[in-house]
């Protein structure tokens, strides 16, 4: 069996390990130069860091996991972007070379089984002023601080929903930024209900509990307030953000009038959870549910020979992603996952369910929006334009809506505004991106190399 794995995050690395154990020939591809994905983010090799473990928790475990890439039956291709998948030929199209460069090498592979482990990116709901420079996703602050030791600003506010805000605050403090506050939009009652409705299940994630305690201690040491039931509802500034307005919100995230409070900041990072990156799964013709790739108990997608694992199938954190990857790797290689692997996966998924329950997105967030609030960042389509188009009977349907307002037609191809537009205007999100990652015309015209070996 010849298994190709796209993505070397927790899911992809676990898939590789278990596909190798089942005897397969494995190729792991990642567009990044280093393995690890979003969770095990590595410092650039050129930094020659002597003590990377000081900022990367679970470093020993990661070192063990990534050793699979050196296995004699494993090929590891960093800097390799999968830009398309040909459904009829089951052919994976790859570009190797500097990101968005011209003249990258074009390669293709035709595997017996394909495992998609492409992960997720932050979901940030729009609010007035969110397009200003200095407003970042929480993940951007994390990527820059943990990945390159760059602080996005001196005074930073961290806001949104979910436990991910805590490591972001920790990383910002670690590069010398002042974190003004960490704001969780959900009220403490919602968070507590989700986290501890079945406390015995948390035992399976004892590591997570310890991690949370560590974040709490770090915030306390730096006197960073952690406030629940508060959200960023506006960013202000001319050329860049200078001030953000926060407000107390109810359980449904509607603003409590009179509770608005301005903060002077250099930067603000906001994340309301994550959106999957299912472009390749879409290209392969896999069925999605609510944007996530549908998989069965063996991590099979609806397309024969194509598997999926990790955050493209549901948001559950690194442990869940790895547990799913393990099952996918075994099955894709023609093996049978043992009951222990299945149990670990199911337990991890249950944890993911609790996470979702503890940090939901309140349905009244749209009350933050004004007529002129930008929803599609690329095309600068406003909330007013979208709602007027959605009410206009002469252009029914999501497709017409897009063409009429251009929302989702810009360079990001709806990655950022897609879920928001479908929520605001009704109708399912349309995923139609035959090209998963940009390729230049010159590269498209160049001859493809076949299997290099």
């Amino acid at each position: 069996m010849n298994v190709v794995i796209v993505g070397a995050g927790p899911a992809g690395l676990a898939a590789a390990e278990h596909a190798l154990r089942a005897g397969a020939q494995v190729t792991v591809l990642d567009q990044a130069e280093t393995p690890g994905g979003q969770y095990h983010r590595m410092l650039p090799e050129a930094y020659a860091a002597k003590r990377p473990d000081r900022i990367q928790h679970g470093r020993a475990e990661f070192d063990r996991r990534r050793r699979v890439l050196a296995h004699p039956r494993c090929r590891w291709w960093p800097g390799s972007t999968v830009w398309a998948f040909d459904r009829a030929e089951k052919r994976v199209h790859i570009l190797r070379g500097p990101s968005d460069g011209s003249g990258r090498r074009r390669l293709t592979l035709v595997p017996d089984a394909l495992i998609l482990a492409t992960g997720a990116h932050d979901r940030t709901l729009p609010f007035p002023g969110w397009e200003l420079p200095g407003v970042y996703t929480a993940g951007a602050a994390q990527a820059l601080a943990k990945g390159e030791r760059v602080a996005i600003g001196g005074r930073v506010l961290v806001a949104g929903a979910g436990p991910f805000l805590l490591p972001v605050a920790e990383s910002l403090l670690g590069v010398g930024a002042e974190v003004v506050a960490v704001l969780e939009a959900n009220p403490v009652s919602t968070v507590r209900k989700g986290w501890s409705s079945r406390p015995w299940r948390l035992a399976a994630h004892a590591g997570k509990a310890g991690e949370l305690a560590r974040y709490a201690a770090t915030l306390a040491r730096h006197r960073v307030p952690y406030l629940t039931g508060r959200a960023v509802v506006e960013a202000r500034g001319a050329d860049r953000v200078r001030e953000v307005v926060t407000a107390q919100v109810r359980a449904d995230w509607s603003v409590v009038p009179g509770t608005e409070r301005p903060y002077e900041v250099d930067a603000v990072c906001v994340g309301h959870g994550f959106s999957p990156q299912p472009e390749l799964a879409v290209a392969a013709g896999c069925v999605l549910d609510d944007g996530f790739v549908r998989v069965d108990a063996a991590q099979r997608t609806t397309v024969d020979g194509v598997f999926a694992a990790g955050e493209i199938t549901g948001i559950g954190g690194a442990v869940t992603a790895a547990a799913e990857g393990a099952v996918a790797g075994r099955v894709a290689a023609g093996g049978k996952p043992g009951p222990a692997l299945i149990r670990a996966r199911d337990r991890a998924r249950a944890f993911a369910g609790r996470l979702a329950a503890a940090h939901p997105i309140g349905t009244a967030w749209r009350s933050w929006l004004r007529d002129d609030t930008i929803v599609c960042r690329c095309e600068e389509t406003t909330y007013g334009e979208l709602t007027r188009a959605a009410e206009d009977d002469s252009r029914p349907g999501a497709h017409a809506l897009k063409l009429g307002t251009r929302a989702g037609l810009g360079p990001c191809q709806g990655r950022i505004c897609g879920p928001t537009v479908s929520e605001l205007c009704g109708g399912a999100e349309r995923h139609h991106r035959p090209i998963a990652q940009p390729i230049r015309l010159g590269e498209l015209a160049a001859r493809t190399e076949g299997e290099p070996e």
Partner: protein
Amino acid sequence: MSGWLQPRDRDPVGRTDRPIRITVDGEPVTGIAGQSVAGILLAAGRTSWRTTRSGAPRGVFCGIGACFDCLLTVNDVPDVRACRRPAADGDEVRTQSREETA
């Protein structure tokens, strides 16, 4: 205050910094080997380097290649995501507006 690179002597990871030089619209800017183009620009105090169709400034938003807000031109190749591109010594970077590339 805008962004910075955590000074080496205050960074517990024990870095070995190798300085590199790039130019941004002809102006020299220094960074260290391994940084992304976006990281160098942010650490140099810039928050934006692209303008949208309406002329609004943009820089980094998602930081991981999803939003395409951080596009710029590197060595005459337009539409490079600054957050995903490791900078190389001598890179000539130009800021860009949407019209140029549309």
